[in-house]
């Protein structure tokens, strides 16, 4: 019995987000492997796509569950210190390579906001982090991605050190 149902287009969005999230330069460097992992995680999420019907309010919960399952998967994996090489990575666009090179906490934040189009509050809820921490990750993720893309962010003081600090 699925724990949630989402409309087919939402399910496609989740799959697209999942494929972007799980592809990295260490664990999953192949499109087919990424697709298999995402399908498995979506099954574990207990999400059943429906063609019609109202949008449920559980979109954040479903993404949150997916992210948690993927984090567990990453923790279980034995990490190989040597960076994997993949033809498909070499042929990917610069932005995709940049996203994949980000640490998981920055990648999931950036993809939730930039790809899945969550509001900042929704993304913070899905990742179970306070809003200031989400914003700090967003700032770091975007700055690192800009550096990767060779984008000049203006005079020093803006593009260099992050401006935001997490105060515990």
């Amino acid at each position, binding site marked *: 019995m699925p724990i949630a149902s989402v409309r087919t287009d939402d399910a496609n969005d989740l799959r697209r987000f999942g494929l972007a999230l799980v592809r990295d330069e260490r664990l999953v460097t192949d499109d087919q492997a990424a697709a298999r992992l995402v399908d498995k995680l979506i099954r574990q999420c207990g999400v059943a796509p429906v063609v019609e019907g109202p949008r449920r309010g559980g979109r954040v919960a479903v993404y949150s569950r997916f992210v948690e399952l993927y984090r567990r998967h990453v923790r279980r994996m034995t990490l190989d210190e040597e960076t994997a090489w993949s033809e498909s990575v070499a042929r990917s666009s610069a932005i995709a390579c940049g*996203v994949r090179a980000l640490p998981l906490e920055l990648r999931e934040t950036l993809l939730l*906001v930039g790809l899945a189009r969550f509001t900042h509050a929704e993304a913070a809820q899905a990742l179970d982090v306070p809003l200031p921490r989400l914003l700090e990750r967003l700032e770091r993720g975007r700055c690192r991605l800009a550096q990767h893309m060779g984008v000049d962010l203006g005079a020093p003081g803006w593009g260099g050190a992050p401006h935001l600090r997490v105060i515990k």
Partner: protein
Amino acid sequence: MSDARRALDAHAYVDGCLSAADRDAFEVALARDFRLRARVDAWRSQNEAMQIAFGAAPRPRVAVGRPSNENKPHPLALRRATRAAPSRPPAGALAIVALLALTVWPSGGPADPRAALAERAEAALRSLARAPLDFVSGDPQAVAAWLAGRLPGLGEIPLHASGLTLLGARLVPGRAETAAMVVFEDAVGERAGLLLERDDASPDWPSLVWRSADLIAVSGASGGLDYAAVGPRASGAAALALHPPR
């Protein structure tokens, strides 16, 4: 307003998370601060590039000065045009052209694939043309050889147009497979591009011209190759199309 606060607001502005009052206040700051504008542009470009790279429909871009969360159509969205259209048609003319397009492609009917192709080329040009190229060369033969290694079965492609300088090429996400965009620069430093994508199942489509307020595009398909030339209206980018529009 402190730098830290503006950095926060820049993210919220780009992602449509500011209230109307905060948005207005931020836009005042934005108009005065070129560094802030550079950041906002960078974050927007990242969002758009991610949408393209990972296969989602790009979020409509909002011009500075417009409410960011109203989800209005992109003011520069390409519209189908006819060859007889004047180079700078009034706004009403664009509305008529859009109405004609809706008549030809009614809701629920098959969409003209050339429209999606032109939109992908426009999005790629806006988002990626300023990003580093995968292959940098001003030699058409060298670029053609590089393309041939990545787009199997690619025939001879003319990579020149009057007034445009060849810069190189980069791979971009395609509809089904990887596509390539050949990037050019015009006399004033604006970029133009030729999007090429193999699609053996695609029937031949004659070239069709699309125009927005600032861009012109020509898209079509021939011999299993989808193509879309796009660039500033004054750049002569339309001449990059593999076949001239009828």
